[in-house]
């Protein structure tokens, strides 16, 4: 629901990391978005495409890499994935684990002409 303000934050991050003279050259913005980051990728894409028109990054395309929810089981000592967000190890069914990934939202890269 707050994808619009997230899109605005992304614009700020691009501004801070790309030299001003290169603003017009920004082609692609690469994002990593976790399955449980609370963000809908399609909606964020839509908001970014709307927000960018008011910025120097009009031709920038957003590419979103989805990051799966991964747990590290402290009993099995292995990583397991769980796409429904339940903190249960796939192997042993235990709940003694920590979250490795899937809650993040990061700008990782910007591609210029």
């Amino acid at each position, binding site marked *: 629901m707050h994808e619009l303000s997230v899109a605005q934050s992304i614009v700020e991050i691009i501004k801070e990391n790309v030299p001003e003279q290169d603003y017009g050259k920004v082609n692609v913005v690469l994002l990593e978005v976790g399955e449980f980051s*609370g963000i809908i990728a399609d909606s964020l894409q839509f908001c970014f495409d709307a927000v960018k028109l008011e910025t120097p990054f009009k031709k920038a395309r957003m590419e979103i890499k989805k990051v799966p929810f991964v747990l590290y089981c402290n009993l099995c000592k292995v990583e397991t994935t769980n796409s*429904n967000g339940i903190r*249960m190890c796939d192997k042993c069914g235990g709940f*003694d684990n920590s979250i490795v990934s899937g809650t993040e*939202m*990061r700008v990782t*890269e910007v*591609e*210029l002409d």
Partner: protein
Amino acid sequence: MSIITIERKVLEKNDELAAQLRNEFKKNKLFVINIVSSPGSGKTSILEKTIEKLKGKINLAVIEGDVQTDLDAKRVEKYNVPVVQIVTNGGCHLDAKLVKDALDSINLSDISFLVIENVGNLVCPAGYDLGEDYKIVVLSTTEGDDKPLKYPKMFINSSILIINKVDLLPYVNCNIKELRDNALMINPDLKVFETSATTGAGIDDWCEWILANIKK
């Protein structure tokens, strides 16, 4: 073509500001909670009961977040505690900047407990750190026992679950054991309280937990 590697969290501005707030709270030895839930779960009612119990024992202040109106601040004001209402005008969550601005009206050295009552919304407030010690999610029995599974992010990011309106259990389609199990499947580290703001059940336990966390 060239590539600039960035590796920055999208919400890092909020996180940085939240870290500053956390420092500020620590300096003032404040215990701070951020209460989140869907609208109508009973956040403000629990808060009213909590203030009744804790008044005279500790000094507290309240920040109320709502999309519109100062109705909640007015409810809290009746208890003669400092309260600031943030109206988000459509915004679906509180962020660290809004809380920082609200703090201008509160004298932190006068209080030992700060309650931030977030905008009623079981989705968006999950992602925004406000510098609190604990995020407390309230879920009422009328909402159904499946909500932790349907809105996992909020339960992943919270440390405490308050199951409210337990007095209505005989009348609603909610299995409290199932609710607990569902929440603990999403976050096994959740500490759970069961309350009724109407009858006062469970409020003593909840208030004892608060008192045990007060730092000055």
